[in-house]
């Protein structure tokens, strides 16, 4: 299936080669489609650089119970997804589901968190899942290294994490084995809907030209805002900067991931606890790094002994309400947009549920709540 059918035409072109695009391309190829994955070069703004590798359920979906259910489904399918990837590629993405914690530094914060979890579960059509609000002593049995300021926290047994760098590598190896035509340095300039298919004009510099496909999936992160309107869709996403700190590798001591601090399978500790509105600026801000390091030490004082080996800033992709957008174009059927903040957590859904639907030709009513039309409510006079 490495060659496109019908004189240079693919069944599907996936625009974007990050975690969302790769998971979709993998699922599409597995569903028997011929796929081209069009990726930018190394200077692309890549949200995948900033992800924290959590496969996380607790707390998500307050304001959209469908998103809570979608998240839980991906978490439930992640173990099987990791197994499929391992069987195919021989690479282990180190998925573990030991349950995750959100420790809190004040009684006020803990109460607010407990209330939010309750409101989340009181939503109509919410698929419930287990979680616990723990006091300090209960929490300390599971996380023995918490600092004296930690008053308690919430716990959800569904939460887990993986090695997200290896996930991207594994997906790329997997799509290669499935015959996906991966095209790096293929920035899409224009998408045209013509003769029931799509033509993607590629930026110059040798790689230039045109890619044709029967369907197109825009999974281009920040560039979705530019690309989606070309086919009658909308992806009003904005960048939100986050800083990440990684320490040297140490023997395992943190046996559960927490929202902002986790120990990777190889031993380094990742810290990521900043949310900044800074446009497309990815300059490292030492003030922000030191603030999140200081806060991390309040949660786990022994982190203060570790050396930091890397620190950087990256850009999340956020929709106005923070929930994903999945939609097929009304005016250009066969054009889809898929964009979300949680490309790791939702990777199993993208690969195993969303991609087969796109391959079969449509998303169905179940995805109506994820349409970007929710942002187009006419303003009340």
């Amino acid at each position, binding site marked *: 299936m490495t060659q496109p059918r019908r004189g240079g035409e693919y069944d599907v072109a996936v625009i974007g080669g990050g975690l969302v695009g790769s998971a979709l391309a993998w699922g599409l190829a597995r569903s028997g489609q011929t796929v081209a994955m069009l990726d930018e070069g190394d200077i692309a703004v890549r949200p995948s650089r900033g992800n924290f590798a959590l496969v996380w359920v607790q707390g998500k979906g307050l304001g959209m119970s469908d998103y809570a259910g979608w998240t839980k489904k991906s978490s439930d399918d992640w173990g099987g997804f990791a197994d499929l990837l391992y069987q195919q590629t021989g690479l282990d993405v180190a998925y573990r589901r030991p349950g995750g914690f959100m420790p809190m530094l004040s009684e006020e914060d803990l109460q607010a968190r407990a209330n939010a979890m309750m409101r989340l579960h009181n939503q109509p059509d919410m698929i419930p899942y287990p979680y616990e609000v723990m006091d300090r002593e209960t929490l300390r049995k599971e996380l023995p290294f918490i600092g004296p300021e930690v008053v308690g926290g919430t716990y959800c047994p569904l939460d887990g994490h993986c090695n997200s760098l290896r996930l991207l590598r594994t997906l790329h190896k997997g799509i290669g084995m499935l015959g996906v035509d991966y095209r790096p340095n293929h920035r899409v300039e224009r998408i045209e809907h013509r003769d029931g298919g799509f033509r993607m004009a590629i930026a110059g510099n040798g790689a230039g030209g045109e890619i044709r496909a029967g369907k197109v999936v825009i999974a281009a992160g920040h560039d979705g805002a530019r690309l989606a309107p070309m086919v009658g869709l909308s992806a009003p996403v904005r960048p939100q900067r986050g800083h990440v700190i990684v320490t*040297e590798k*140490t*023997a395992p001591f943190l046996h559960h991931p927490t929202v902002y601090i986790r120990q990777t399978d190889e031993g380094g500790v990742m810290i990521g606890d900043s949310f900044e509105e800074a446009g497309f600026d990815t300059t490292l801000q030492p003030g922000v790094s030191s603030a999140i390091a200081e806060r991390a030490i309040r949660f786990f004082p022994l982190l203060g002994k570790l050396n930091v080996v890397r620190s950087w800033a990256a850009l999340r992709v956020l929709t106005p309400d923070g929930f994903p957008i999945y939609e097929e174009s009304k005016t250009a059927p066969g054009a889809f947009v898929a964009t979300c903040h949680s490309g790791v957590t939702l990777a199993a859904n993208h690969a195993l549920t969303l991609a087969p639907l796109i391959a079969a030709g449509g998303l169905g009513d179940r995805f109506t709540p994820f349409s970007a039309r929710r942002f187009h409510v006419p303003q009340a006079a």
Partner: protein
Amino acid sequence: MFRRLPEIETALNAAAEAVAFTIDGRPAKARAGDSVAAALLANGVTACRNTPVSGAARGPYCMMGICFDCLVTIDGTGNRQGCQVRVSPGMAVETQNGKREVER
């Protein structure tokens, strides 16, 4: 095996400047001004740690702070760069097996 250059051996009186320290608890001698990494090599310790992921042996390589291969535990603190620390009298240098322990 590493040896000191003969010119340096004759130019300096090694015995007068000997610094006593320990490697994994064993008494060892270095010269004043030696880095810990140089002192390890001079004492025949070419592998000072095993890597945290694959467990492969590593030893001092670049001797100028770049490669991070000479990591050792010095006076109880893990993952110190041996080439960036001068050996001092009574210093306890320990080789590292795998990952550093977070509490040391």
